[in-house]
């Protein structure tokens, strides 16, 4: 029948009249954002390994960074990271490519600012990060490696010229000869004494004296056994 559609249409609008409004009252009530909503790009400086995947994947050249080669570890060191957000088209390629998840979109979408320059976000290397690195790498690993080097050098010196080195911890020449003979036969004692000499000289002297006494006793035992043997003969 003609006009049925009209009544149907009136029914639809009548139904919608009583339905809940879908208007978002944004400044008063913040909108419910989907979990993967792409708002503002965020960057975590400390996670970044400066691999450059994000910079290469960005179609609009939004991202850029500066690096420096670390002299000690020969690693790339991130100095600054820049997000020129005005050109971003929210394609998410940077965040997808990042192996460390240090660049990602958060839910902040209120990005307006008074000046064009304010849109640009520059992340500088945080000073505390350098300090922490000094503590961690320079403070522990580097010190350890330094010590290791010293120990290695000491070991070499002991192998080359044991008498000269051991004279620092042992007084009697007879003892020095005994210990150098012992170290040549057993590398472990050499390593231990070298380590102790670098770290604590007094302790090294005591340990060395202990080794010498032990060696002397052993020698005495073998001598007496030899004498006994002689007697038996």
């Amino acid at each position: 029948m003609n006009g049925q559609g009209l009544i149907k249409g009136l029914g639809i609008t009548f139904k919608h009249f009583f339905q809940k409004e879908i208007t978002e009252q944004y400044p008063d009530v913040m909108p419910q954002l989907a979990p993967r909503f792409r708002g503002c790009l965020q960057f975590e400086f400390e996670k970044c390994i400066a691999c450059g995947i994000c910079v290469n994947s960005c179609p609009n050249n939004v991202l850029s960074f500066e690096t420096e080669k670390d002299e000690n570890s020969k690693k790339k060191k991130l100095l600054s990271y820049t997000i020129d957000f005005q050109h971003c088209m929210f394609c998410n390629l940077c965040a997808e490519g990042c192996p460390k998840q240090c660049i990602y979109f958060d839910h902040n979408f209120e990005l307006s600012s008074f000046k064009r320059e304010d849109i640009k976000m520059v992340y500088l290397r945080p000073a505390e990060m350098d300090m922490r690195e000094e503590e961690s790498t320079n403070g522990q690993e580097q010190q350890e490696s330094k010590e290791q080097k010293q120990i290695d050098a000491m070991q070499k010196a002991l192998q080359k010229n044991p008498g000269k080195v051991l004279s620092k911890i042992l007084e009697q020449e007879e003892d020095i000869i005994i210990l150098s003979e012992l170290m040549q036969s057993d590398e472990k004692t050499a390593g231990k004494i070298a380590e102790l000499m670098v770290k604590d000289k007094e302790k090294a002297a005591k340990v060395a004296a202990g080794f010498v006494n032990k060696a002397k006793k052993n020698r005495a035992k073998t001598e007496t056994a030899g004498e006994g043997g002689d007697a038996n003969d």
Partner: protein
Amino acid sequence: MEALFVNLAAVLSGWLTSLGLSPIWADTVLLFVKWIIVITIITLNIIILIWLERKVSAFFQERLGPNRLGPFGIFQTIADAIKLLTKEDIVPSAADKLIFKTAPMFFIVVAVMLYTVIPMGQGMEVINLNIGLLFFISIGSLSTIALLMAGWGSNNKWSLMGAVRSVAQMVSYEIPLAFSLLGVVMISGSLNLQDIVAAQGKLWFIILQPIAFITYFIAATAELNRGPFDMPEAEQELTGGAYTEYTGMRWALFFLAEYTNLVAVSALMATVFLGGWQGPWLPSWLWIIIKTYGVILVFFWVKWTFPRIRMDHLMSFSWKVLVPVSLGNILLTGAGIYFCRWMGWC
């Protein structure tokens, strides 16, 4: 409460005659007071109606509508009115200036004239005219001239196109509009609107004349230039039709007149088909307001449901559907009346 305004008028006219004025002068002063009241009613109605239309259309579209200014955004219209009043009044240099300037005034005057015959309660009308319905129809069709003046005076192709459309549309729909009211006139036997209201004491004419009600509703929508028949404005096609060149308060006058017409036509519809000011418990002047607003809400509902129809469809619908249907309704009503008399029911 029932006779509140009638008694007030009697007190006023008694006071005026006691001052020594002759009855004619007292009536003139009373008429002036009535005119002021009508203007107040119109202004108040427009403030409410514009807000209501925006709100209702928002609800139909699951939006919120104006909600910033005052509770539920009720002061939005007032802010808009202040904005329109302070806007620059631009008259195009190529316009026919006299016609351009008089068109909105003419439109609003014609719209206000419609209120002279509408019974706004028991014994509450500006003039109790015995040809009230005829007066209403004839004055209502005068607004065509105002739109034509606006379209011609603007000297703009869109304006003229809108004006031509409005003339074609309004003249075409005038016929089914008048014909659909004829059935009511035949039953009540009077053109006086108070008599028509009184004739509906037992049964509203919407039940006796359902076809007439529907044809009148459609024709009235077209007469009011409201959606889905808002061809003369047609923002998307004609950039505002006859109102294209109007700015500020002149444009606002057109807007005002359209809503004034809407209220008048709705009030007439309530009077003719829905029993007028008659109703239980509440005073009569409240009943007519309730019924009028009910009709207005239906107008809003229709406007915000249907898309605008094409101009040639509009014309052919009027001449090929509405005119024959309303003529058939007259025939049916006449036959029904004779049948009733033959059966001895009336």
